[in-house]
Every structure is written in structure tokens, then in C-alpha cells.
């Protein structure tokens, strides 16, 4: 998977035609063979752009920063990234007419040890679902949804007794340092004032106690239930290497099972699992 040439050409063309103010892509980090995101404003810099299986970070995150707000933006999205972009569009966070989206038919990206990432192995929608231009040999959208399987780690953990699971998660919350990097690197966490930033609330104070970490991470994962697209930006940002995907993938599998096989952001304009209300919704769990 190497679309470096095509993306450079597209970006150069967009700048030449005056269609964009900034192009968001990837560049080499300058010290090893890994890549970092780059925001290109000067057309002369388009030669810095690259795209290979090392292009990991979900660039939709940059649509919520000062650098792109109220600007015309060119953007590269893989399958999972495009799903989060779909949600940003549905939730009215960005305007479609301000974007020029280069979609990728993704074959999976690799981590720093050159191993294919777990979310790519389990990926259900690898082709970009929203784009102006599609790179790579992908099928149509309907043909490209692969069968959904419960995440391997979630399944392994679910097989363990409750006490063991409790102990495992206690360890996770104990090792959280409350830097909130997971939230900031998540493309779908765009609230101007996050509820876990309240300085004087009972549950989500800024302290780094295990209980505060528990409440912050659980609230965060519940706000992303039915929205998380499994891009794993959060996990890559976590300085303690916490297995944050467990929280999201657990929610995802429950929602898939109970909400007509709902997958976040796959269908444009889809209002999502928790946006819809029907009188026929089951309520037998309410006493």
C-alpha cells in the first residue's frame, strides 16, 4: 500500500486550483521509518507528503483544531478514519463543502514493530466510506463490509471469572495518570468543556485517584458507545500503554448485538445507535 505519489499530485492540484487552504496528511518523522501527521499550508511542501502502511494516526482529529476550523481542508482518510468523519458530519461538527476528502481503500496499517495492528486484522470496513476521490482497488461500499467478530481480547477477558476481570481493570485504572491524552487524541471528543474537567464535581474531579480515573474513563467510553470507530488513536496516545480498546470494543459488541448490527459511521447521515427513539424499543429492563 503506497499512495505517496497520488496524494502529492492531488494536494498539488488542489492548491493550484485554489480549492483548499490546508492539506492534512502524513510525513516521515525524520528519525526512523515511522510517520507523523502534517498540516501543509505552503504548496511547496506537498513533496513532504507520504502514504504507506505506516500512516497510522486518524487525521480527522485535526478537524477540531484552530488550524483547520473555518478553512477549506484537504484530508486523507482510511476506512476507520472515514467512519469518524461521517460521524463528525452527521453531528454537524464540520461542513462537507469545506472538505476535499481523499479516501483510501486501506489494506491495514502496522505498528512500530511492523506488526499489522489488531484493529486492522479485525477491520470490518477497510474502504473509505466518504470521499471525493478514492485511491486503491476497493469494492463498492456494500460489498466491502466484512463479517463482524467480537474482539479477541474482549472475548478472552469475558471467559475469565469476575474476580479476575475486576482485578485486571483495577490495575488499568490504577495505572492511568489522568493526562487525558486519550480524550484529546480522539476525533470524536470535541466538546468545548468536557464533563470530566469539572474541578469541583463529586465524581470527575481532576485528582489522579483510582476512583476518579475509573469515572473519567468509564464516562468517556460510554460517551463513545455506538460512536467509536476503533481507530485506536487513544491507545497510541496513552503514555501508560493502557488497553483502552477493551472498553470501546466491549460497548461495540453489545451495541452490534442489540441495535440491529449497528456499526458506527458506516452509513452517511446515519443517526447512530443512541440518536434514535422508537416506541417499540424494549423497556422490560425497567421495573
Amino acid at each position, binding site marked *: 500500500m503506497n499512495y505517496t505519489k497520488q496524494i502529492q499530485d492531488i494536494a498539488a492540484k488542489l492548491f493550484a486550483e485554489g480549492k483548499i487552504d490546508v492539506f492534512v496528511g502524513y510525513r516521515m*518523522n*525524520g*528519525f*526512523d521509518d*515511522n510517520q*507523523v*501527521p*502534517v*498540516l501543509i499550508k505552503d504548496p511547496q511542501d506537498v513533496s513532504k507528503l507520504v502514504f504507506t502502511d505506516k500512516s497510522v*494516526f486518524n487525521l480527522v*482529529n*485535526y478537524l477540531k*483544531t*484552530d*488550524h483547520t476550523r473555518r478553512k477549506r481542508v484537504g484530508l486523507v482518510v482510511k476506512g476507520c478514519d472515514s467512519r469518524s468523519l461521517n460521524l463528525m458530519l452527521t453531528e454537524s461538527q464540520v461542513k462537507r463543502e469545506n472538505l476535499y476528502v481523499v479516501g483510501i481503500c486501506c489494506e491495514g496499517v502496522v505498528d512500530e514493530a511492523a506488526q499489522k495492528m489488531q484493529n486492522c486484522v479485525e477491520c470490518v470496513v477497510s474502504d473509505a466510506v466518504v470521499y471525493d476521490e478514492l485511491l486503491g482497488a476497493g469494492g463498492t461500499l456494500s460489498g466491502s463490509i466484512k463479517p463482524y467478530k467480537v474482539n479477541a481480547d474482549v472475548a478472552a477477558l469475558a471467559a475469565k471469572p469476575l474476580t479476575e476481570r475486576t482485578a485486571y481493570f483495577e*490495575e*488499568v485504572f490504577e*495505572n492511568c*495518570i*489522568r*493526562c*487525558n*491524552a486519550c480524550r*484529546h*487524541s480522539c476525533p470524536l471528543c470535541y466538546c468545548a*468543556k468536557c464533563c470530566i*474537567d469539572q*474541578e*469541583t464535581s*463529586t465524581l470527575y*474531579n*481532576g*485528582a*489522579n*485517584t483510582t*476512583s*476518579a480515573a475509573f469515572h473519567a474513563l468509564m464516562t468517556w467510553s460510554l460517551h463513545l458507545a455506538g460512536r467509536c470507530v476503533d481507530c485506536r*488513536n487513544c491507545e*497510541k*496516545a*496513552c*503514555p*501508560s*500503554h*493502557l*488497553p483502552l480498546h477493551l472498553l470501546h470494543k466491549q460497548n461495540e459488541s453489545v451495541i452490534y448485538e442489540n441495535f440491529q448490527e449497528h456499526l458506527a459511521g458506516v452509513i452517511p447521515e446515519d443517526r447512530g445507535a443512541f440518536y434514535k427513539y422508537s416506541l417499540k424499543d424494549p423497556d422490560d429492563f425497567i421495573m
Partner: protein
Amino acid sequence: MSVETFVTDKAGLQKFYEAIMASHETYAPVEKFGKFDFKQVRSLSECDPESPISKTQSIKPLFFPRSAKVMKYVATSAGTEVSEVDEDPLAVKRVILGAKHCDARALQVLDKVYNWDYIDTDYQKRRENTVIISTRCDKADTHCFCNSLDYDVENMVAMDVLVVHGTDGKVYIKARTDKGDEFLNSDVPFPASRVPNEVAAPELKKQYDAFAGSFRLKMDYKEVNARLSKIFDTPEFENVSGNCVSCNTCAFVCPTCHCFKISDEKVKDTGVRYKSYDSCNNGYFTLMAGGHNPRPVKYRRWRQRAMHKFVYYKERFGENLCVGCGKCTNACPVNISIFEVVNQVATSG
């Protein structure tokens, strides 16, 4: 201070560590989820004092905890009663194993601010009661640049006891402070021969030279200090901070960052007030009660971070607020390097 260096081998060093754990409250790097953090340990099997620098958190939380109780309070109809918190668990006599040189140095830098207008007695107590044992690295990591900064990595006295793995396969253990000297000569028996310092010196020098030759990054900090102080208004800050996602993790893992916030954990009428880490990259960091924010955009916050590290702290305390450990770059989801940032800005105009 002692004129002798202890010479032993790898097995002797293990015995040394075991003897310490048997008789002292000991903190050492413990692996959790692939990262090492300093925790209290009782045996060598729980920890790895030689943990890789790129995966190890700093020792700062043992002196300036990520969250510390400041006070407790109870609201009654007669008013609010404030009480002292329980005893500080970090203020007991203790030993830290496997601290990196850069982390030890960071405490020297922090001492300046903690001994400034307000003397933080909790911090002082923790410092006084701790013996720091630091192993010199054999090889610089990708983002290390400690020997480019304003401290002498070879001869520094930031740690109490220095451990060096010589190129000859022997292990050299040497006191660097009186506290370290007293510690080595007290109740930590381990098999070692003693040689005069001058005899061990050539091997220590040889090891240091090999280490110093392995740095990828080199910079002239004086040049950076001088240039940065003149270009506050350069647009380059906007370029270098472009792909920052403002996640704040750099400040949380930094061994020298010391900004904090105050928050309350309260249940009904009783509460505990906490002092916890904060970061100047946070959008609301400078937000005032009236709603004004003097640093409303990302590049201004980044400028503050770079300037505080290489200009303001230097002007006020004579030290850079950066020890070149590379932790921020390792932790950063988009690999922004403070090294690159300050160099790029300093050479921009």
C-alpha cells in the same frame, strides 16, 4: 566523601540490590502494560532496575505525586472545619533504584523552584529522606540529548550513588554525595572489592565516552537560549505546533514540569482537596474566572511551553527546565520533539 570505588560484577550488583530491598523501603521500575513505573518493591523479581529509558516513567511522582491530598474539610452549620491530611506516605526513609541520570538531574532543577519564595516542606522532606541510586546509561536512546544541555552528565552529583556497567564487564559503584557515602558504608552488605577512585576513573571515563558517542541529537543550548529570548513573536511557533493534538501527555511524563491544579473530591458535606498535575497545553490552563484567556490558541500555549523550558526558567534560576530525557517525544502520539521545536524556532529568524 569516600575516596574509594566499589568494584563488583553483575551478580554482586544483584546482591547489592537485594540487600537494599531487605533492609529499606525500596522503589524501582515495575513493568505494567509494557511501561515501567516506579513502585514500591520487595524483591528483585518484581522489578527491573535496568529498564529501558524509552519505556520508563520518571521518578518525579515520588517527590511531586500525580495527585496529593492537601487538606480535608467538613461543612457544618457552624462553618467549615478544615483538618490536616494523613501522614505523607512518601516522606519515609527510602531508596530509589534504577533512576535514570536525567530524572535525578530533574530533581536538582526542581529544587530551585521548590526552594524559591514558598518552601514546599512536603517536597523537602521527601528529598531529604530519599537515597537515589542511578545507573549510567550505556547507550543514548533515539530522543535523548542530555549531554547537550547545561549539566555535566559524567560528574553530576544529582544521585547519591552511581552505578556504572564498565566496558570491561565489571560493575563500579561509587558514592556521589555524603548521604550516598553513608549509605554504602552502612547496612547493605554485598561482595565487592574497594579500589581508590583514581584506579577506577579511567574505566568510568571509557564507559562515559562510549555513551557520549552514541547520541543522535546534539544541540548548542546557549545558542537556543539566546535566540529564543529574542523571537517571541516569530510565526514559526505556529508551524512547529501545527500537528500537536493538545493531549497534554508531554507535561504529565516530563520530569521537570511542575504545574498543578487544585480540585475537590467531595461527598455531601465532607471533602478532600487534591493537588494534581496540570499542563500549559490545556486550553483552559490560563482561563480566568471572568472568561478571559490570554493564551486562547495552541501556538501560544506551545510558545509558553518552549519559552518556559529554555528562556524563563533559565533567566530566573539559571537552569534549563529540560533535561533532555526524550520522554515527551516518546509519549507524544505524533512524536513532536521539544528538541526539534526549539531548534527549528531558534534557527527560523
